[in-house]
């Protein structure tokens, strides 16, 4: 997301595009024209736009446009960049996306290996350094890796397979119809197309094959779905599995450079404060402490610039930590000194109770509310959150002779390269960014302030430096998930039908980190469950209210979808209760009939759609209904439950993936809650790696539980009051959702693969809250709602 947001904002500042993030929330990122929509829904020829048909395998691979073309540096399709075959047959594939736990370092290259008929046990993965002109976009964010790279990977795999086949044909002095690649070798075929028994291994063919001209796309044939060896199977373990279990896997802090020193940084407690005075006399007495280095900070909007502060540099991490403890720093005042989250929440609630800026209107919402028999209104609150990925931020930097080499766990290594180069006065060509494994990311490691700090300190010290953030640093100095109030109103008519719907969202915007604070949710944020709501009510008003930012707002796994799903999916269950309806039936009724939403008729022509062309990745309520029905069926929805047990349901489309979750809870008489079972149905188009999809859904349930019950960031006088896991708790194994059953809607390759890292998160909290209500009658509207059932 990082790059794309920057690009959107830059375009806006330069006045280049339709996008008007700062003042106009009706952002147009993928303007869907009426004509395109008619072509799309009219069937037949409209679907042909941008598609190419394959000779001999038209059904196997129809290419389609994706949002990859809108990303910085787009995609690179060049087998020589991604594939190397050694003479012993080892196939070395380049993973150009970062690995933070979703499995992309395995699943993306696996697509290429499958299409080239490589034997996965003979594949090695090398991690690309940050170099987008060479590899294409590397910004691992927005659940995009497979969505954007399944096609390039298949194309490169097919190219290499063809090159190997051609090399074998040449070797046997025969033509391409007499050869066939199969599991790491090329077989010779007879007149009838049957193997003759002759074969040549990939290793032996490698040097000739890789010297062949890369075939044009039109010359390629592709495997049919039933020929996939690895895709869709889920039996390929992640490539780092053995190293992880033996402690050999290398994360950001697991690098040492000759002569390296260790640093931690004292940062201002309030964003925007600066060093007024510093007394380092006690610090410098700590054995091992070498020096203190002041790091310049910047007042937001400053993108990923460091907050500033004092780095304590020592011969080991512990000495640096001790030295920092002994440091006496006086900080200046900041305009954000008065930020107190309880008061801010009250302000947001007050704003949410006033008419907002209208982003979308359907029918006559004012009339519907004026004539309603009854109006149901509720507010749903969500605090700031912090990623709390297990690996705190860390970077190793070695600035030497006008060159800088970095080792760091970063989601966007090329973004880091350009940002760090600028910060230390080098060109990107003088900077190398090596990407380690990421010990979790969740969006935090998209922002490279910690790498810039390491580079600055290394430059100042003239030595390599490992700059470590402590857990407290991580929690107190983040780019925070925004806080929000979602206000929902429904107008009910004489027949108990919902005839009016109003959703008003109030939350500080991510844009404030990049540009002067527009004070209202931006277009791409509105596109995450607000503007694009699938709710089908005759009269609707979608609105946003003003809220200024007082900290660095960033993105957190699933971003604005979390508060929107929390509000909308809780409210639907509340309406069901109000009207005496079954919550699942109410949900399906409000989603309305299966249809592809016409964004023009629905007054959401300015929809972001996660950067994807709407024609290819439309908002299909049939698929949303499908996951609702699948999850409900699997969970036994509608059956009688034992006393103290109940089900809750929620569904949400995000990152063009559809997810529905049914949470089953059990309560005891003393109010203790447990979650014995979760059923999550997911429609992510063609599913490359079902096993990793399941692991993402399991993890999303645990993170969803943390969001629902445990974690909120609080500000007192501008400073984050949380510090570590005792006051920023996350779910532990003592209270996790015991069994998460993942049900994947099966699709052929022709149904575009989407992403899976984020979409599991948003439905969980409302599904849990709805289950708690069903079991106890207690309705939670404020996150986090605590451990015990009230």
């Amino acid at each position, binding site marked *: 997301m990082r790059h794309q947001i920057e690009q959107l904002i830059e375009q806006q500042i330069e006045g280049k595009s339709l996008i008007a993030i700062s003042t106009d929330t009706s952002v147009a990122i993928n303007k869907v024209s009426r004509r395109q929509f008619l072509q799309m829904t009219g069937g037949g020829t409209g679907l042909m736009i941008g598609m190419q048909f394959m000779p001999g395998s038209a059904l196997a691979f129809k290419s389609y446009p994706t949002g990859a073309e809108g990303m910085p540096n787009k995609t690179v399709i060049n087998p020589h960049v991604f594939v190397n075959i050694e003479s012993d047959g080892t196939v070395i594939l380049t993973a150009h996306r970062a*690995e933070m*736990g*979703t*499995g992309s370092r395995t699943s993306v290259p696996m697509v290429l290996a499958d299409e080239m008929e490589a034997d996965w046990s003979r594949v090695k993965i090398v991690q690309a350094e940050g170099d987008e002109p060479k590899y294409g976009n590397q910004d691992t964010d927005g659940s995009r890796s497979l969505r954007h790279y399944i096609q390039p990977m298949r194309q490169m795999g097919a190219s290499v397979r063809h090159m190997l086949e051609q090399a074998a044909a040449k070797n046997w002095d025969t033509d391409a119809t007499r050869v066939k690649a199969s599991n790491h070798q090329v077989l010779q075929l007879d007149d009838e197309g049957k193997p003759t028994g002759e074969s040549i291994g990939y290793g032996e063919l490698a040097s000739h094959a890789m010297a062949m001209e890369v075939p044009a796309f039109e010359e390629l044939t592709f495997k049919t779905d039933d020929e996939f060896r690895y895709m869709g199977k889920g039996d390929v*373990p992640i490539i*780092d*599995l*053995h190293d*992880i*279990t*033996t*402690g*050999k*896997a290398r*994360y950001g*802090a*697991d690098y*040492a450079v000759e002569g390296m020193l*260790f640093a931690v940084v004292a940062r201002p407690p309030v964003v925007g404060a600066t060093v007024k005075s510093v007394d380092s006399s006690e610090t410098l007495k700590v*054995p*091992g402490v070498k020096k203190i280095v002041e790091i310049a900070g910047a007042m937001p909007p400053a993108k990923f610039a460091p907050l500033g502060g004092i780095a304590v540099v020592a011969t*080991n*991490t*512990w*000495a640096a930590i*001790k030295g920092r403890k002994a440091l006496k720093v006086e900080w200046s005042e900041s305009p954000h000194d008065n930020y107190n989250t309880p008061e801010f929440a009250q302000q947001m609630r007050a704003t949410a109770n006033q008419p907002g800026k209208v982003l979308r209107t359907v029918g006559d919402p004012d009339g519907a509310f004026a004539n309603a028999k009854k109006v149901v209104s509720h507010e749903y609150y969500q605090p700031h959150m912090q990623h*709390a*990925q*297990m*690996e*705190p931020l860390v970077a190793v930097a070695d600035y030497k002779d006008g060159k800088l080499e970095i080792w760091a766990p970063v989601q966007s290594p090329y973004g880091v390269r350009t940002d760090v180069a600028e910060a230390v006065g080098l060109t990107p060509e003088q900077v190398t960014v090596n990407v380690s*494994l990421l*010990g*979790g*990311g*969740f969006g935090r490691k998209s922002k490279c302030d910690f790498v810039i700090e390491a580079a600055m300190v290394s430059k100042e010290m003239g030595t390599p430096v490992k700059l*470590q953030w*402590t*857990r*407290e640093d991580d929690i107190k100095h983040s780019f925070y998930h925004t806080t929000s109030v979602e206000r929902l109103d429904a107008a009910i008519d004489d027949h108990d039908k919902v005839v009016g719907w109003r959703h008003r969202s109030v939350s500080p915007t991510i844009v404030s980190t990049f540009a002067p604070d527009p004070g209202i949710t931006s277009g791409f944020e509105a596109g995450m469950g607000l503007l694009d709501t699938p709710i089908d009510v005759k009269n609707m008003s979608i609105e946003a209210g003003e809220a200024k930012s007082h900290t660095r707002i960033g993105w957190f796994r699933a971003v604005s979808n979390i508060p929107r799903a929390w509000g909308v999916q809780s409210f639907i269950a509340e309406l069901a209760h109000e009207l005496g309806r079954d919550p699942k039936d109410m949900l399906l009724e409000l989603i309305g009939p299966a249809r592809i939403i016409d964004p023009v008729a629905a007054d959401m022509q300015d929809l972001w759609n996660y950067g994807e062309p709407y024609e290819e990745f439309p908002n299909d309520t049939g698929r949303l209904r499908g996951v609702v029905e699948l999850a409900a069926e699997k969970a036994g929805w509608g059956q009688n439950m034992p006393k103290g047990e109940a089900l809750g349901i929620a569904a949400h489309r995000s990152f063009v993936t559809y997810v529905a979750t049914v949470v089953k809870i059990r309560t005891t008489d003393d109010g203790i809650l447990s979650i014995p079972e979760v059923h999550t149905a997911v429609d992510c188009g063609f599913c490359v790696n079902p*096993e990793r999809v399941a*692991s*993402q859904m*399991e*993890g*999303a349930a*645990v*993170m969803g539980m943390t969001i629902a019950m445990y974690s909120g960031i609080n500000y007192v006088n501008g400073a984050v009051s949380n510090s*570590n*896991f*005792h006051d920023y708790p*996350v*779910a*532990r*194994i*003592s209270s*996790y*959702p015991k*069994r*998460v059953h993942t049900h994947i809607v099966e699709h052929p390759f022709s149904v575009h693969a989407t992403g899976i890292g984020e979409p599991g998160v948003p439905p969980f909290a409302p599904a849990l809250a709805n289950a708690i209500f069903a079991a106890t009658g207690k309705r939670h509207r404020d996150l986090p709602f605590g451990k015990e059932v009230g």
Partner: protein
Amino acid sequence: MAITLKVNGVERSFDGDPSMPVLWYVRDMLNLYGTKYGCGTGQCGACTLHLDGIATRGCLLTMEAVADKAITTIEGLDSDGNHPVQKAWRAMNVPQCGYCQAGQIMSAAAFLSTTPKPSDDQIDQSMAGNICRCGCYERIHDAVAMAAVESSEG
């Protein structure tokens, strides 16, 4: 006076700050990177190692407390990486990002050495000191249970 100790069976001598946690000693001085920093306050378990066979938080354990003692890190758990817990972890495809897993494995291995046939509740209680933010708990639970069966059969 120098502190002597054994790390993964190797005799070591340390003459630095006796208040230094073992976590930073093994990482910064020995370049043994399997033991991870997670919270520095004993709350997350990422730094779990064995002190004379008992699972201990490396971030709170000082060098003076390990004088003449033996510590084992993930690198020393099994020379081939084939401890039953490690094998079970792989069989269950437990990890997502993997950062916490060395600590999880060290906790599980120590737990099973004293509780070879644990109940489900015992597993969850014993592993509750190890946080996994990716949320691999279901598989961690199942892998511990599997390792228990493998160990008792083996």
